[in-house]
């Protein structure tokens, strides 16, 4: 119990003086996660919108596939990306293994199905409302997709948040493709795992607190934006 209390006080001390090692890890975590979520949104939002609007043979299969991929085990993704990026793999020439780039790729693979599946769900509901109007006004499907994405932007913030949550808290894939190299690929989750195994609970706990605070701040910001949008009947 005393260890626990000591760890907490040490953790707060590290946070208070903003330990440079801690700062470096936090900054890299955010960089990797934001980049991965950005890539996942660039791919996932248009695919989710297209699945919500277009009717084509096999569409249902795609929806089931993306819903299933939401539960992709991170270690499996880590392994697949590792095989792709290792020297013997097809993308080995890019020499990305054990770099933040590899971690971004792995997290993008994990987050994209979440963005696709949830975007499809949100936009299908809105499309059910707009469909007759789109058809009446003879709106081309790509314009309808942009309209749905724009009009559902506040609801989609929650979708992006779900992706962000998955990426920032992910450890299995990034440790495989990043290697948890100090000053290079060490992020909050991999550092927590390492420091815990070494018994340095203070740093692990400090990182855990930062992780929680980031999640709290992002959630609070999104909730505030959505609440103001709801007041304006835009959400």
């Amino acid at each position, binding site marked *: 119990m005393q260890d626990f209390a000591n760890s907490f006080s040490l953790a707060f001390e590290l946070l208070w003086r903003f330990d440079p090692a801690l700062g470096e890890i936090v900054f890299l975590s955010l960089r990797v996660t934001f980049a991965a979520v950005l890539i996942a949104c660039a791919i996932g939002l248009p695919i989710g919108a297209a699945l919500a609007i277009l009717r084509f043979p096999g569409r249902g299969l795609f929806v089931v596939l993306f819903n299933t991929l939401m539960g992709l085990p991170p270690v499996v993704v880590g392994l697949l990306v590792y095989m792709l990026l290792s020297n013997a793999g097809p993308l080995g020439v890019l020499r990305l293994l054990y770099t933040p780039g590899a971690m971004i790729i792995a997290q993008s693979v994990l987050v994209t199905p979440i963005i696709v599946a949830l975007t499809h769900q949100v936009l299908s509901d809105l499309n059910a*409302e*707009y469909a*007759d*109007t789109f*058809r*009446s*006004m*003879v*709106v081309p499907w790509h*314009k309808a997709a942009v*309209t749905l994405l724009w*009009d*559902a932007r506040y609801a989609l913030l929650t979708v992006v948040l779900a992706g962000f949550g998955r990426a920032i808290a992910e450890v299995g894939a990034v440790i495989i493709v990043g290697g948890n190299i100090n000053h290079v690929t060490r992020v909050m989750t991999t550092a927590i795992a390492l420091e815990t195994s070494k018994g340095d609970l203070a740093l692990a706990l400090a990182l855990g607190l930062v992780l929680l605070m980031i999640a709290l701040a992002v959630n609070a910001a999104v909730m505030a934006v959505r609440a103001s949008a709801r007041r*304006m*009947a*835009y*959400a």
Partner: protein
Amino acid sequence: MPDPRVLPFPTSPGEARPAARLPLTIRGLGFVADGTRILDGIDLDLADNRLTVIMGPNGAGKSVLLKLLHGLLAPSAGRILWGGRELDRQTRQRQAMVFQKPVLFRRSVRANLQFAVNLKKSPEATELLSILMDDLHLNDLADRPARLLSGGEQQRLALARALLLAPDILFLDEPCANLDPASVLLIEETLHKARAGGTKVLLVTHDLHQARRLAEDVVFLHRGRLTEHSDADSYFDTPASPEARAYLAGQILL
């Protein structure tokens, strides 16, 4: 100086309004949903751009008829020809519809209207936008979120958005249900201007007073069948079908 009683609709070069889309010819039109026959054996010819009112008791198939004519539903039987042609994308682009419950985008009033202007891609649409905002008293509401408007304001916005498409054919499905008299008046005045501008208006209404004010010819439906199509005067003064007589007398038709 433009005539303030007429909506100056922009037209594509060399395109007549609205003769290119008329006559509307309906032959043997039927629609079945979940095994229930909603419309059956409808034959109808509408050759000119008089304002046509479609009347009939609840469940007669009026709204379904509008949706079939506009291509929102596919017929189970029969044919619909616009100017001798099946309903195609080009013809549908010259039509617009105002629904009983307006579906507005989650945007401001101005952004909802701008959506139609952008879709139309015609320089005159901007001029039409300012006329319609004046006519339908939308200027003061321009920056308000569309979904926070009252029912009457929403329906005025929906009508303005539909008219921005400069339609040859305008369908309206009970646009004034539950609206206050001021909104009804604005909508009716705008429909008169659209009619004067060459738009063929097909209006579904239960309101006999509104029908008397607006109708130039009346189509009466009962239990999915067309029982009468006549000039408004003769429909209201000497209805030909017993169903129409009973309806006008306020008797419930079962």
